[in-house]
């Protein structure tokens, strides 16, 4: 079983404090977060689907360990925004689900998105589809869905593995406008090659804050930036300390490294 090192015992609570502090600040005053092009393009993609009168495919990925997990919930919160926007224009959105545990959560979230836009009758339970929880069977199902429905837009958010390219290339073949976002660093290059817009790195976790403009989430993003600044400073300080200590033959460098590893 993995347990925290001394460095982790100090740094994780420190980063958590930064995030909580900025959430509290954001609830009292407005904070700025920069524009994310891929997320601004979501409205453009929904508009295109509306004009073409064709449906959109919103996929929340396969997840990392299966079940209800943070990566998939984050994807679902982006999909919820897409559904709310598309509900205003009565544009159909199909949501394929990979994990059966995510099915009731997805159904409830989508139903609420339609209700919040005052269109509960637009919710169609057949559009939230559990397909399968086998990786390539799911890829084949989503690819088939994209081709059969001639999707005008595909949104691929969440954690993906090798099937990412199968889905994205099928979307490309039917001429869909494609927006993808994943924390899976191995799949980012494939999405960049096949999609119109890709949200990379921590932009993925910033997405719901950017879209909802909800103070708690915006504060959280600013807190994350402060935490990243701290990490950067520790890395720079570590590089200088370890380099000088190694040059002088001092044990301080080893102690600094041990702080993070033991």
């Amino acid at each position, binding site marked *: *079983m*993995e*347990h925290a090192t001394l460095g982790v*015992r100090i740094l*994780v609570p420190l*980063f*958590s404090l930064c*995030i*909580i502090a900025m*959430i509290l600040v954001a609830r009292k005053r407005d904070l700025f977060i920069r524009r994310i092009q891929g997320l601004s393009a979501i409205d453009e993609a929904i508009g295109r689907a509306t004009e073409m009168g064709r449906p959109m495919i919103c996929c929340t990925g396969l997840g990392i360990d*299966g*079940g209800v997990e*943070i*990566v998939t*919930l*984050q994807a679902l*919160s982006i999909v*919820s925004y897409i559904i709310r926007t598309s509900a205003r224009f009565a544009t159909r959105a199909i949501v394929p*689900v990979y*994990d*059966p*545990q995510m*099915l*009731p*959560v997805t159904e*409830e*979230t989508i139903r609420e998105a339609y209700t919040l836009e005052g269109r509960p009758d637009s919710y169609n339970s*057949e559009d*939230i*589809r*559990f397909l399968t929880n086998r*990786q*390539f*069977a799911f*890829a*084949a199902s989503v690819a088939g869905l994209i081709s059969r429905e001639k999707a005008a837009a595909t949104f691929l958010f969440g954690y993906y593995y*090798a099937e990412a*390219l*199968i889905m994205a*290339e099928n979307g*490309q073949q039917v001429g869909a406008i494609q927006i993808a976002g994943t*924390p899976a*660093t191995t799949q*980012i290059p494939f999405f960049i*090659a*096949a999609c119109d817009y890709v949200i*990379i*790195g*921590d932009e993925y*976790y*910033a997405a719901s804050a950017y879209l909802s403009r909800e103070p*708690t*989430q915006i504060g*959280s*993003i600013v*807190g*994350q930036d402060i*935490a*990243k600044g701290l*990490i950067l400073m520790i890395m720079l300080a570590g590089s200088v300390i370890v380099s000088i200590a190694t040059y002088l033959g001092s044990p301080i460098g080893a102690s600094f490294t041990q702080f993070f590893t033991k």
Partner: protein
Amino acid sequence: MFTPKIGGAWYGYIVGSLLAGIVLLVVLMQLPQRARKYVLWTVTFLGGLFYALEFFLPTHEMLIEGNKADGNFLSPFVVPMTNVLPVISAFAVGLGVINLFQMHTKRVLKWNLDSINSVAFFVAMIAMTVGHLMAKSPHPSPFATSLYKVLFEGALQSLDATMFSIIAFYITSAAYRAFRIRSLEATLLLATAIIVMLGQITLGQLLTHALPEYLHVEVVRNWILTKVNAPATRAISVGLGIGSLAVGLRIWLGLERGSYFDN
């Protein structure tokens, strides 16, 4: 409590758990929506607190599951806590199957050209379930074993492998679009890809073996992968780690807003 039971105790625990589960479900369903959110938040908080304390509290050598390992007073409960997940998952599989049945039954009843796909779904699902149950029985017949092999190894695994192999063609078409020289970035991508690909094969090494060692294609490839690609990937991973911490923290402390949280 968390040790295997045998005989009458086993039946007692099964029946007791089932009854407790049914009572819990009935009570939860009677609760108003707002109260359910508090229950959800409390369970999430306690679950998160358990794993956080187990991870952060100081450890010492102790016996966990009969093996010597580093842990603290919460460590022996990690495996039983984790065993809850497959149980929830088993219930959820039922939900998935019900969803599939509902959707495909409607399609068969409506009957149009696409309904044949729904019929194929029912045939495949029933055949696979029956084949698996027969083959995994205590004394499977040769027919059951053959049926299982045909369905699982012959059909399902082959179909999986087919889908996986299709990726090779998709990579080619995606690479063609990505590597077309249209901008400075695309040109850099193309040049990098050529170097990395040549560095992987002996032909590339042969082409540059006459050059100084630091210009050997495998050396340049290694430099690109370890000094350019790896730091960029790590930077993305650091951002993702902090992002994940922030989302986890918001959910754990009930700060998140949305369907399953207070608005």
